[in-house]
């Protein structure tokens, strides 16, 4: 009986190891709750790491996770140009890109985000800028947006956007870049910092 018990223990230990391995890559695996998060500092090749999701699609119809391209070091969506990284983010021809943040605990959090467009080419053909906006979980009209900013035409200044809001654990914040009518020269550089306050 002792012998059986010894092997059983070995089995349990192994189970732990295997579970750990499996969860390491899983988007929904248990993760430590931090005080602050940063899109650039936390950027990862793993969807869901530190709560960040890299998405494409449409805020009305829903977003899907992008695919991390190991050679290019950036996420790609299923649309021409659709890509997202710390250096360069571009909405697709017919789709938006979004950074999602899965809230790890119920609290009041504050957001500070910067965005700027890469210097556009000399002539403004097709350069109608981008629309950058944020919401929690979903929205039905513009009133519910947590911020909304047009970065128009050939403008290349850095825009800083902030808000503070109460959230529940599991809520998803979305930071969306929309190409407006076309996505010519819509290359943007984005950062988002999120600080978690105390319990709500």
């Amino acid at each position: 009986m002792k012998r059986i018990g010894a092997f059983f223990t070995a089995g349990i230990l192994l189970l732990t190891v295997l579970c750990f391995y499996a969860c390491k890559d899983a988007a929904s695996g248990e993760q430590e709750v931090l005080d602050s998060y940063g899109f650039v500092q936390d950027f990862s090749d793993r969807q869901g790491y530190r709560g960040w999701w890299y998405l494409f699609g449409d805020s009305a119809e829903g977003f899907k996770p992008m695919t991390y391209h190991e050679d290019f070091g950036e996420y790609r969506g299923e649309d021409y140009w659709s890509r997202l990284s710390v250096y360069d983010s571009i909405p697709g021809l017919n789709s938006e890109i979004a950074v999602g943040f899965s809230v790890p605990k119920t609290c009041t959090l504050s957001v500070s985000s910067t965005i700027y467009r890469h210097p556009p080419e000399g002539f403004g053909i097709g350069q109608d800028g981008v629309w950058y906006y944020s919401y929690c979980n979903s929205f039905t009209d513009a009133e519910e947006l947590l911020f909304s900013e047009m970065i128009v035409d050939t403008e290349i200044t850095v825009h800083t956007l902030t808000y503070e809001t109460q959230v529940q654990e599991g809520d998803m914040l979305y930071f969306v870049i929309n190409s407006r009518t076309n996505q010519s020269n819509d290359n943007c550089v984005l950062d988002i910092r999120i600080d978690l306050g105390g319990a709500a």
Partner: protein
Amino acid sequence: MKKFWAIFLAVLFCVPLVACGGGSVKKEEFTVSFAQKSGTLPQNVKKFDMFTSDWTWAGTSPGAFDEEMLTVVPAIEDVMSENLRIGMGIGTEYKSIGYEIGRLTDGSTDAEYASVFKLLTALEQNHVQPYLSICYGPDYSRVNGNWKNTPDSEKYETFVRNLVQTVERNGYNAVYEIWNEPDNSAFFTGDWEDYTETYLAGARGVRAADPDAFLVGMSAAWMNERATAMRTRKIGDESKQMTDLAYFIERTYGDCLADAFSWHYYGHDGETEDLGADSFSYYLNSYRDVLNGYLATGLYPALETVQTHINEYNVYIAGTTEKYMSAEIVPYMFRAMDDLLAAGDVTSINWAALVGEKNDKLSYELINGLSYERYPAYYALWMFARLPVDRIDCGIEAEGILSYAGADDGRAGILLCNASGITREITLRATDLPFASADATLYIADDVHKTYRSSNLPYVLAKQENMPCADGLYITVELAPNATAYFEFNDADGTAADNDYRVSKGTYLRTDYWYPERRDGAPWSDYVQSSGSAYVGMSDNAVGKSAVSVTLDDCRDVEFCMQYDVWGDAQPSAAATLGFRVDYELSGGGYADAVLYHFEGFGFDQSVPFGSGGAVSKKVSLGLPGKGSVPIRLRDHAPADWTGRVQITYIVKDAGNGACAKFLIR
């Protein structure tokens, strides 16, 4: 029973219910012993190759090349595809890799192939042979302005000759196919006779450029019609009723006979059978019936070595439902693969397609051409590719569970696909693993476990290194409907799996097969170019024969160790052959001084349609059938006027029911 539980190292892994689709769960236990290989079952032969359409490699403007797309080339090698069939789109007005070829020239300048060469270089680096579908009509040979029209024969011959010369002058070894789907008005406006003339012109061009080049003909969209519909045709002065396939055979038999006949097959919504004349078996057996009819006459012996390539294949055609991008399609794929593996005489199946159209529409792709996401269908092929060829009978008879297993000296693998429609909890016991300790990995492909990466590796559900194997291993996994799990055990001491090896002996020229019998379950043979591994087997037959021959150049100083292994019920007899022969090419032409290396009791000197074909000059016994190796220095038995080229032909004949052998050049 107590002892059983005590000596097995328990590995229990439970996937959360939400990850498995919920619903009822059926629990089962299976034991798979790796002690004995099966020779009667179809082996896990690596004959699933790849296809990409004209536009896959093209950039966003005509003539441009999509450099980024080259990052998917390693994905071809990782599913053990020996070749990539490339639609070239020559002469078309749309974006294609062959856009520049023959547009302003006769196809003879390197510059017009710049895009093609980028791809060919990447393929070569990844041990994948290019399979160029020379379609369609370039400006140079065009008649009446349309690339779909029957080209001017003389000019087309010149063009194809120039194309082959240019490709080979630049150091590439490719397969050449004349046109694509000439029986589809979307790609050819002429009739079958017009295509046959076009083929003959192209074939003459290929042969003139390089007599050793591998030539493919037909590329038929609808073999169900080509092999059955009777039409009045004129051969010489004689008019007779015949099928298009028969007409093609009779018109091309001789110097222009193709090395492979090619045709395409797409299933309906995943199904490939019970579709009447659209069933895969109807396509294949109608085609075989015509070939067998000619073979039976004894007047067309060269047809015995014409290969069958289904060089566009899928269980569905590009459609409008997302299930093709989900795991739902995978059970259909494995069911179809059972049929394809049973058809030993089909030597290459090009999955359509590696990458589909690069837009946001639904396509028939394994990899999304914009996001580079690998779909479950890709992972299914990846998992099958990893399985050793040497088949293990799983003995799993559970309704709705599709299973495959294989083992060689470096790897053992078990693949389970849940086609049952309900969640299954499966405890799998792997016993008699062929090594002392294993690095074990459990991969899964379903709609929940996604990597969200461009990596070719499926989701790793569990991994553990250095697990002692003496007492077996077991693991429990829940499989959602349509999920596929692949359990891989690699020798922790580092012995490589047979097909992970990359051979570099001599210069590879081509592979030829001998299939005197065209039916499911006939004796078979296979050669894996990249690893130099050859397999022959009797399947469930006591009598019958097959052979595969590989032609290698630059072998004067080549020495290697031929490792071999035999399994199944090999039965020696005076009529039995099991082994390989080496034929030496003479500088004056032809082959001579063949040496037959055979197992004891399997030394019948079977003539073959390769090398000198006839009696061998020498026999070397490998001893009783079993595992071993023999050092071979090719020059030892070479004639004085040897060119340095050899044909190594692996043969099985009347070797006993289920007899199977492999030969590995190392």
